[in-house]
């Protein structure tokens, strides 16, 4: 079972090795961080199937990265990759179900896709009590060891809003687990 919590130095080392073609590290990385990455993706895309597709797209992004470029802020870089690919997939899924996207619609416009596409964490009961943004705040803070201002920057939200969402989310999770939600 993986370690789940992402350590910045180790992550940077792994990404560099993967970008250099180290298959063994790739497999270890996948075991260590795959579940957290998949959970993060599930906060943005709607279905498990789509999330697995995105997960398989995240890995080539690392492999094809220029190995000579250092990863100075590895967790932020990785989250950006996850976020961009997930949003793209969410938009594609959404477009397939509804009308086609207008020509001017751009993924980088800063539009909050999560607001238009309901996130779904279908296997983690605890996270179901949180909205997609709260899920992302919790995962990035707890598992990626990001500071809340950095989370705010990456999510494109005001800092105080992220802080409120995070505190509120932790309270909800506390309530959930105290009521025995984690026991099966």
């Amino acid at each position, binding site marked *: *079972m*993986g370690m*789940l*919590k992402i350590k910045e130095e*180790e992550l940077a*080392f792994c990404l560099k090795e*993967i970008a*250099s*073609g*180290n*298959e*063994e590290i*790739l*497999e270890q990385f996948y*075991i260590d961080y795959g*579940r*957290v990455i*998949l*959970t993060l993706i599930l906060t943005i895309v709607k279905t498990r199937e789509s999330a*697995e597709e995105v*997960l*398989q797209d995240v*890995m*080539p992004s690392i*492999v094809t*990265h*220029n*190995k000579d*470029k*250092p*990863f*100075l*802020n590895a967790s*932020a*870089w990785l989250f*950006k990759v996850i976020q*961009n*690919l997930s949003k793209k997939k969410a938009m594609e899924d959404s477009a397939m179900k509804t009308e086609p996207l207008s020509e001017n619609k*751009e993924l*980088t416009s*800063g539009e909050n896709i999560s607001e238009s596409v309901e996130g779904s964490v279908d*296997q*983690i009961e*605890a*996270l179901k009590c949180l909205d997609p943004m709260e899920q992302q705040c*919790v995962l990035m803070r*707890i*598992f990626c060891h990001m500071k809340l*201002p*950095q989370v705010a*920057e990456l999510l494109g939200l005001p*800092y*105080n809003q992220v802080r*409120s969402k995070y*505190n509120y989310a*932790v309270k909800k*999770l506390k309530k959930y*687990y*105290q009521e025995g939600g*984690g026991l099966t």
Partner: protein
Amino acid sequence: MKRTEVAEMLSNDISCIKLPPISDKVLQAVRSKKQEDPEADESVPESHNTSTVRLTKYLFAAMLLLLAISIPIIVVLSTNNKISEVIDNSQTFNTFSKVSDDAEKSEQERSLVSEGSKRTLDTIKMKKLCGDVALSAKSDQELENLLTSYSKQNDVYEDSEYIYNFNIQGKLIEICRNNPDYSPANIYTADKEYIAQKSEEIIKDIFPAMLEQEMIIEGSEDSLPAWFVTVCKKNDDLSLEQITLSYDGTGTLLRVNITQEPDSIGKISSSEAIRLTLKEIRMPKYNVPEFDDDSVEIYVNVKEISDKLMYIVFVNDIPSNTYCVTLVDPDTGNVTMLEA
């Protein structure tokens, strides 16, 4: 229930997710990458114990780092130069101009004068408030860990209590405690009134223009930071400036974050200015290394140039720490490259 316990239980839940196998496409990609680069073969560990290999690599890297640090220190000590001079010079090397040669010493001096004048106002203000502050002697890695938005081009000052982070424009963007081991006791002695009073004093001293604005104070005893104070102001240039101060339960200031986001100042919106900038910097004439859209960070601000408001756009490629700065005319969309 503590937060760590919540995190632990959530970890257990996430551990139960079924992970699909790595696709053949990914494995093929990594194999072809290895074939492209024969040197990568040497980096493949012989042992199957990945942790041991990682540890060895870390130790080797640490030794190299120690060696790299010790050589300049020995050189500096042997020539009786003051360390502060070295720090000043190193700051110069971090500027865009990338002065890299002793033969260009006069260029360095000019650059220092220019840098100095850029931040004179803020430095005086800080000295008035905080006493003697000096350029930080901390390493880039230490500063990256302590600050939320540090880049090598930033100017960072510190005193015994706080670190002051100035962005490339010379604007104070963050203050944080100068003690990474600071661990506030689980004591809640500061009430809302005390926090309001203290925040008002800080804002009055450092951000007087924000003094008239409404102060939003939020607190939660079971969290750290315990208190958050937010002040927002719409500037004349239409940018929205926000200052957030955080305190522990005793009312000790932990961190101040200053953000500024511009609205539209002409026919072209700030997001359109970003799009035009990204298009411009990809032109071959600038010889800018290829940017990876996935990893790029963009900041946009408003600046008055010859009595006209312009967008100033900073593009930072995180992995390579490469910066580009452009000016975008809000009416015509004309992009002028300032730094690349």
